């Protein structure tokens, strides 16, 4: 590729970045390397819209999980990681915030359901408060547990067995419990890392319905390798490839009219 073509492409990329007013999150020239010169995320620029579902897609190893984890700095659990660039939550640079405060505002749900096996359902929901040493009155705790479980449509299923271990639930129920645990803090943003990859289709559908319901109150960022899931529930989609953000657009636009040949290749199943 000639330098002229590269420059042209750069300009086109700039044009393509969707214009989002008052974004909740603003990712600015973010690069992340696990060790020197091996970048997992390269110069990503993106704004995330409030009360919408943004899906991040791409073949495995494309950096989508790393990008998601960077948003509440979970990627820092790996030693020797290098982070360049900025992520703003409203006007605060999250890379300069205390992780404790940041993670209260941005919750996370993981690939495999991971309720704490030594805790009851009730304690799992309230775990964030316990871990953070926040003291609550009994009534407040009950209120938070009920609200959070209602939010994930789990309350009716478990209200009689709140003191049982969370690991007795089915996989789908466990995952909704984990979402409830993340919601208990009433965060602004919820990050989900392939939340349905370990679930059966019925449980997956329930979680998807739930996410659509939740976007009224929360901003949701979702990593998925399931294109149809992104098509079904997301409002905006990102396509990442080899650490680059190749394309970012309204989901409908991207799925009907991808502008980059790599996106098209991925969406039509040529690779990934």
């Amino acid at each position: 590729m000639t330098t002229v073509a590269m420059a042209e492409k750069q300009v086109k990329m700039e044009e393509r970045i969707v214009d989002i007013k008052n974004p909740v999150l603003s990712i600015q020239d973010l690069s992340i390397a696990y060790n020197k010169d091996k970048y997992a995320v390269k110069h990503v620029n993106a704004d995330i819209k409030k009360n919408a579902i943004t899906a991040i897609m791409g073949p495995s190893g494309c950096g989508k999980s790393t990008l998601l984890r960077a948003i509440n700095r979970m990627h820092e659990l790996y030693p020797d990681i290098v982070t360049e660039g900025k992520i703003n939550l409203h006007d605060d640079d999250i890379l300069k915030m205390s992780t404790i405060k940041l993670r209260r505002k941005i919750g996370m749900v993981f690939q495999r359901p991971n309720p704490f096996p030594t805790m009851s359902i009730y304690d799992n929901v309230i775990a964030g408060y316990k871990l953070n040493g926040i003291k609550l009155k009994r009534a407040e705790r009950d209120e938070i547990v009920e609200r959070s479980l209602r939010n994930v449509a789990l309350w009716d299923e478990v209200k009689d067995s709140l003191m049982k271990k969370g690991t007795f639930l089915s996989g789908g129920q466990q995952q909704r419990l984990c979402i409830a645990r993340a919601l208990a803090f009433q965060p602004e943003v919820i990050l989900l890392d392939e939340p349905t990859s370990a679930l059966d289709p019925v449980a997956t559908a329930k979680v998807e319905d739930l996410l659509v319901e939740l976007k009224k109150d929360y901003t949701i960022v979702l990593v998925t390798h399931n294109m149809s899931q992104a098509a079904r529930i997301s409002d905006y989609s990102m396509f990442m490839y080899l650490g680059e953000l190749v394309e970012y657009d309204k989901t409908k636009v991207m799925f009907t009219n991808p502008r980059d040949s790599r996106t098209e290749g991925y969406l039509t199943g040529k690779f990934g």
Partner: protein
Amino acid sequence: MKAQIELANQDNSSYRKLKDRIFFWFIVVMSVVTISPIVMIIGKLVVKGFRQFNFNFFTQTTPDTFEAMMAVSQGEIIPGGILNGITGSLLVVVLASVMAIPLGVIIGIYLYENQAKRYAGLIRSIADVLQGVPSIVLGLISYLWIVKHVTTGFSALAGSVSLCIMMLPLIIRSTEETMKMIPTSIKEAGLALGVPYYKIILRVLIPTGFSGLMTGILLAISRIIGETAPLMLTTLGSPVVNMNIAKPTSAVPLLIWEFYNDPNMVDLIWSSSLFLMGFVLTLNIISKRIAAKRRTI
């Protein structure tokens, strides 16, 4: 919402981060404290034991108290060595190994072959219990059995029986664990060809698991070589080299105990301990090497 207000008021993050830092350093400091004794012990043995390490130390028997006293009073190093201890230790340990290794390996294979059986479970539990029996009690047992009834007197055999009982559970467990790691397909391939079972054990199971068995055996030997208490009750000790299994025999740890109790011999304590420690260390390193090699294959 009420809870939300509480949340905003309870900003404890800097306090918690401080606690986290302090805890981290507590872990690091305590870990260093934990390993400091081994450094101090080995350091002390090397510094104090090095002086006595000479050719005679390995080729001569222990001096008597008077010789040692004369040498010390003239500022010379104590003459003589610990040959009777080295040969005694070898005799007792080899004898114990000859009994414990075949028996332990066979029982280990038995447990591997009959894993689900209740009887095998019982044997396994017995091995577990035996592993926890204090060595001094094993010394008592061997005294009651061998010293009193077989050799009618303190003997190398009695010592090796107590050490053999000590080794057995270690070898049994390591054999069973090693066998479990051998793919069953290897065994079945042999069985399918109609090879007699004993040949499969000798030609397939034992050679395939050889390094695992060796690791277990070396570790078991390194455990018993430094044992003093059971030998006090069984082999008693001897100032001369003895190779008769029915006669009292010395051993390096027994000599250390004797030197410790004899003010004139104190200088020999450290070199003997250094020798013993070096032996244990070498066995440990060899067995770790074997284990590491096995993992890479």
